[in-house]
């Protein structure tokens, strides 16, 4: 390997990509790389929101401190992100790079477009987490098995180095689960064969634009203001991997859930029962956690 190998992780808040990128940095260091870096992209801290993290791996010390724009590898731990916006996800991915995906549906894989020479690997990280009970606060820590998939795809770090990194990172009682997840993922990761028309020229590196109607400082007012609006950040329901469902038999109409919902996605119906607006419910599970009657269950969302 010449120069710096750069990695970009895509996930949602709560799926462990920041932790996994730290573990990858430790593992790469164990592997003999002198320059390793893990960079969390700290955005609006919202459970369920899309987040990114980055790694740099090099044989020489790393002096760069900016974010990663042209990665050699992209790891997508939540497949809904890829189906939501695949060009944002693979933006800047280098030729001959790696795309490592969690259990993409076959229709996602067949519509996938990647830069020339890229290899695509998939693993069913969700099933591995469910099987091993690798969950925190109701969410699968999908990024951990993805470490195994990354190791298989790139050959940059060994299972041994990952295992040692896990040991230095977690309490003894959770080491086994995490190591097992990595091992299972390593052995079940497979390479996807793409058709020639699925290769394209690289998508230039860029940052997604959040406020598209403003182009230049001359368009700005002296002070930014906002007026209240519904769903100004889009349909946050698309972020959901788990769906809260209210059992009216158990519900006492206390409306704790309504009060705690960080997205104001719970309305009150004419009978006084909470009614979840699934267009905006992001599946964070706060209502599930707060309900004193255990009247809310979180079910895997089959969107």
């Amino acid at each position: 390997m010449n120069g710096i190998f750069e990695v970009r992780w895509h996930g949602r808040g709560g799926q462990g990509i920041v932790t996994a990128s730290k573990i990858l940095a430790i593992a790469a260091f164990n592997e003999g790389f002198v320059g390793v870096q893990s960079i969390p992209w700290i955005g609006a801290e919202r459970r369920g929101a899309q987040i990114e993290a980055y790694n740099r791996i090099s044989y020489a010390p790393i002096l760069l401190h900016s974010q990663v724009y042209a990665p050699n590898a992209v790891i997508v731990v939540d497949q809904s992100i890829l189906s939501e916006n695949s060009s944002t996800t693979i933006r800047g991915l280098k030729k001959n790079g790696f795309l490592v995906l969690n259990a993409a549906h076959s229709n996602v894989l067949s519509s996938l477009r990647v830069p020339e020479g890229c290899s695509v690997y998939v693993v069913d990280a969700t099933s591995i987490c469910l099987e091993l009970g690798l969950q925190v606060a109701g969410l699968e820590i999908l990024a951990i098995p993805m470490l195994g998939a990354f190791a298989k795809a790139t050959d940059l770090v060994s299972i041994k180095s990952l295992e040692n990194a896990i040991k230095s990172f977690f309490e003894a009682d959770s080491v086994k689960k995490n190591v097992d997840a990595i091992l299972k993922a390593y052995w079940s990761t497979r390479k996807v064969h793409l058709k020639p028309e699925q290769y394209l020229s690289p998508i230039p590196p860029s940052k997604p634009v959040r406020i598209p109607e403003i182009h230049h400082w001359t368009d700005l007012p002296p002070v930014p203001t906002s007026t209240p609006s519904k769903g100004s950040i889009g349909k946050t329901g698309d972020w959901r991997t788990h769906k809260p469902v209210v059992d009216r038999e158990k519900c006492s109409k206390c409306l704790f859930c309504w009060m705690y919902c960080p997205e104001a996605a719970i309305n009150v119906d004419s009978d006084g029962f909470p009614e979840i607006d699934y267009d905006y419910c992001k599946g964070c599970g706060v209502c599930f956690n707060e309900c004193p009657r255990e009247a809310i269950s979180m079910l895997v969302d089959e969107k």
Partner: protein
Amino acid sequence: METLILTGNHAVAYAVKMARVQFISCYPITPQTGIVEKLSDFILNGELEAVFVPVESEHSAMAACIGASLTGVRTFTATCSHGLAYMHEMVHWASATRLPIIMAVVNRTIGPPWNIWAEHGDSISQRDTGWIQLYTSNHQEAFDTVLQAYKVAEDPDVLLPVMVCLEGFVLSHTVQPVVIPNQEDVDAFIPHEPWKHIIIDVDNPITHGNLQMPEDWFYEFRFLMHRAMEAAKEKIVRCSKDFEKTFGRNHGHLVEEYKCDGADVILLSMGSLADQAKVAVDVLRDEGYKAGALKLRAFRPFPEEELRRVAKKTKCILVIDRNLSPGKGGAVASELKAALYGFKGMPMVLECVAGLGGRDVTLEEEVNLMKQAFKVVEEGGEPSGIIWLGLK
């Protein structure tokens, strides 16, 4: 029009009254208290129709002013020293929300050791908050500058808050004659038109100050503040010229020159020492020295072009700073040197730190300092660090 014999504090309070300020929130602190008391009197006896909100701290005073200013009313507060330091967070909020709040800073040392007397360090340490800072040299100037401050701050091209600075005790508690203009003239000079860029209205709710991600527009909003500061330079000059037309007084615009043409040494200072420097220059001229004095009125925005224009005329600028950044020196000297650096034909800069903690600076001391500077110039010497005035 009448002339009253007023303390510096009361001069400020009279100006606030005549500006028809609608909202005041203050927390008293020595030596600013006289302003708060006089304004309370004005409100109590009906001379000023304003809401006065007493608060438990300076942080809250500024927060209250921000809230009031967001509704478009003319707003005032005053503080200094520890009070200003405590207010610091809200000082940023006011400017970044681009609110034309006026605050009198009755400059006082920050302890410890405990000390209530004059020093510019309190407002200088708010240098980077995005407030316009105007320093005044006497009671009349303090009065006039409050009126000018409202005109500049509320200009749609500026929309920045202003600190009007006057030294504690030296100006705040001494008395001098102050010409009080006619109310109609003041009303015509600063008619109140509520700003439009941000207005809180309960029927049309908005939020402001919301998150800007690094890739959004935060950087550009700061650029706009800087641009507004740059625009303020011209506005301060224009306002000061208009003021002279109406009221017949001129305190200099961004800087005030005194006998700088043909001067070999120019004494640059802010506040009361700048008034006194004019007398020192007269003394020196009588003795045959080619001396001049330069008053820095606006510290923010910093008038680089004007300073270079004056600097070109002389061989040496001697700066007296009534503030100290330990490990560097005085703020005015530092910034002056940065403004001159790299331009052709710039003079030597000598720096003196004096008058900290209210230590008195006499006319004789100013004269002797300048003589020291003349000696360095004559001998072809160069600067050799900070000159400490009367260090025991």
